[in-house]
């Protein structure tokens, strides 16, 4: 009984930590993606898409700080999509 309880606690802790880490990693990935788009000239060539990415990433970070990893993930997905679009639109633009 005692052993089972310990295992359960450890599992829950690991699950909690893993979830948090996944969100953090996703947010960092989007941050890097937006930085790359910016370096490719997205601010000029795909301003709307770039700033939408930035704005939704900001919302995602806020939700993550609030502990709402689910909503953070949703906002982060939107940010990542806009970032990808901005990057694509910037290809061939100002470098």
């Amino acid at each position, binding site marked *: *009984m*005692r052993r089972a*309880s*310990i295992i*359960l*606690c450890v599992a*829950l*802790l690991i699950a*909690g930590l893993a979830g948090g880490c996944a969100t953090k990693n996703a947010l960092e990935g989007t941050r890097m993606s937006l930085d790359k788009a910016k370096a490719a000239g997205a601010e000029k060539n795909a*301003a*709307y898409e*770039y*700033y*939408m*990415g*930035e*704005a*939704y990433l*900001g*919302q995602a970070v*806020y*939700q993550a700080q609030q*502990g*709402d990893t*689910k*909503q953070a993930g949703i*906002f982060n997905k939107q940010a990542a999509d806009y970032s990808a679009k901005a990057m694509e639109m910037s290809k061939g633009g100002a470098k």
Partner: protein
Amino acid sequence: MRNRHLILLVSILLATFLVAGCGSHRALTKGETDQANAITAKIAEAEGMEKGAKICAPKELAAAKANLDGARHEATENWETTQPYFVTADKSADLVVAKTKACQPPVLKYSAAPAAISPGACATLTWSSRNVQKAEIDQEVGAVPPSGTKQVCPTITTDYILTATGTGGTVSETATVTVKAPVAAPPPPPPPMAVAPVVVPVVAPKAVMSLHVNFDTNKYTIRPADLAELQKAVEFVKQNPDVKIQLVGYTDSRGNAKYNQKLSEKRAESVKKYIEGEATIAPEKITSEGKGEADPVGDNKTKEGQFLNRRVELFLK
């Protein structure tokens, strides 16, 4: 005892995860829905402008949309007041509208009436504009309000350029006031038919002299006015019995070409008969021909020119 503590700890952890993961959602209140709709309308207004918010204020537009989504989410997640989130989103939307409005290019409507005036008359320039802070008209008119009228009295045809400047750029429009040429005095009447024929030397391969004899329209009879001129030719023939004379008749360009050809031949023949009747000249030394409306010496578009073209020329071979 230890087991009990462990069970309690696990229960607390489970409860925490359950509350965090399966937190109850709620629908937006009517007030929140109205606020969200008002913010959406502001964003749509900015996006729908001639030069849209995506171009004029992309950063602000993105912030407003994201803030609105954030506010909506908070409203479904929190039972406590979400007013601050909506206030932030609303301020973002206001910023988008303001920045997009300021970015709109000036729009001008500008005209002159009447567009054409007589010398000494005046015209009125009328203009209206949008998104304009400063406007001016050249030609020493100077600064003008964004909308208005101005009377101008140019002495010559003049372009009045209205230049309007706003935060969204500068545009120019031109209104032209045309000053009509003074009404010319009526042209002098065509010279009377009795005008003496004009002797014009014509450079031709074999000619040493030529004589113009004019005819009335559609006629080939010798006019009394031309008798004196023909008499000179008669005298010349008498003094130079050995010269050969060639007479060439012409018409003006009016009428059928075939008819004009015949008429020109008859005119030349009339002169030939006159000379033959006045001077003793062997028939082989005087010839006549017609060239219709060819070789005009005057402008067939004017009465004076047509008169000059109705003629017989005399060449000495």
